[in-house]
């Protein structure tokens, strides 16, 4: 598998250690942290997942393993930023997903954060309070996979709940 990043109809703005992308096809705005940005920029259709891991590790100067790359590719695909290849990323390799997510979380920012660009009318004054709180960014770090069925018959706490982040 040699993933290819989507580059058409996107406006990219480079920031220190991050990339912000405006997707003109669906008016979404994505912020890629440095790991996701390095992977997205390197997906030119000629590199395997292992190639990407090595390249990103060299670029960022931080250990980057296969799981991290696969996770990032999944998030980039969910955000609509990949052309081909990401959809066939096997989910099996994620025995250490928790570890991968944890490593990324230590870096401080989500792999891919997304907002929907508001239309101008969304800013109209109103005498009625808005029904919903301010729009939240969609964080593409996926929730942990459900735990295996308990052998003793007791359900573990917090099963099925993913991380939430508010701005």
């Amino acid at each position, binding site marked *: 598998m040699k993933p290819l990043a989507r580059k058409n109809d996107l406006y990219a703005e480079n920031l220190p250690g991050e990339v912000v992308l405006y997707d003109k096809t669906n008016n979404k705005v994505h912020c890629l942290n440095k790991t996701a940005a390095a992977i997205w920029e390197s997906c030119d259709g000629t590199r395997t997942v292992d190639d990407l891991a090595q390249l990103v590790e060299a670029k960022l100067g931080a250990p980057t393993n296969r799981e991290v790359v696969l996770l990032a590719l999944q998030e980039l695909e969910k955000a609509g930023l990949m052309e081909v290849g990401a959809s066939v990323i096997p989910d099996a390799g994620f025995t250490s997903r928790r570890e991968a997510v944890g490593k990324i979380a230590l870096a401080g920012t989500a792999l891919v954060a997304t907002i929907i660009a*508001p239309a101008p009318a969304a800013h109209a004054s109103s005498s009625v309070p808005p029904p919903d709180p301010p729009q939240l960014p969609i964080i593409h770090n996926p929730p942990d996979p459900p735990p295996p069925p308990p052998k003793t018959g007791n359900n573990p706490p917090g099963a099925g709940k993913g991380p939430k982040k508010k701005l």
Partner: protein
Amino acid sequence: MFASSPKAAVRDSRLGIETHDAVFSVLAWGVRIEFRVPAALFAELPTPIVPGAEFDNQGPADVVLSVQVDHSAEGEPVYEISENGVVPHTETSLQAAAEFIESWAQLTVATLAKELVFVHAGVVGWRNRAIVIPGRSLTGKSTLVLALVEAGAEYYSDEYAIFDSEGRVHPYWRLPKLKDASGHESASRLLGSVLSGPPPIPIPLGWVLISHYEPGNSWEPRRLSCGETLLGLLDNTVPLRIRPEQSVKVLAKAMANAQGFEGPRGEAANWAQQALVLL
């Protein structure tokens, strides 16, 4: 500030108002709007209708707003407000029509101003840099801005942060609008004399503060990355869908030496004190 072009007046016995139109144009932040409204409605409009607007009838209008007065089956006036000939709105009272026109005019300028990027936000000056508090209507921006002013910051805006191509923030010079009478009184007391003078100069962006109210909370924000802060600003950027590249570019430039913080906050006065100590 506004000049009218009087036409032959016809007193409408049902409405009790003169039905000739006031026709005038204003130029605000590079956007020219032509208004055609009944004289009675013209008298209800604020001056200026958009902060920073000047009377200007040189050149074609970007938008024309017209108001026609019709009547309901009960004989009550109905104000049909049209934008470039299309009727987007009706009101049944003079005051409501005036309030709608004021809001519409300000949003229209914020959307169409080509050289500037309007972000829905409150703004104060602190140590020669701008503190920007992004948020839609009714999210408490005005209250937070007043709290910061009471704590020693300099007032810039309670509605829009206006960014120029250099990333500087311009003032939106008007009295903050608060829902309750006591808030309005505080605003008048704090800023009435300030607003009678010239607005302050544009300043670079220093901080972006994103918060939501949770009673009893003391403000212990986490620092945001540059990209996260930019998303927070873009989420409140009026022309983002119309001029996405310009919006992103201008705000990214503004962020060059700025920091973003986010976290729940308690009461505005306490939050303001904590914020200014932190920054």
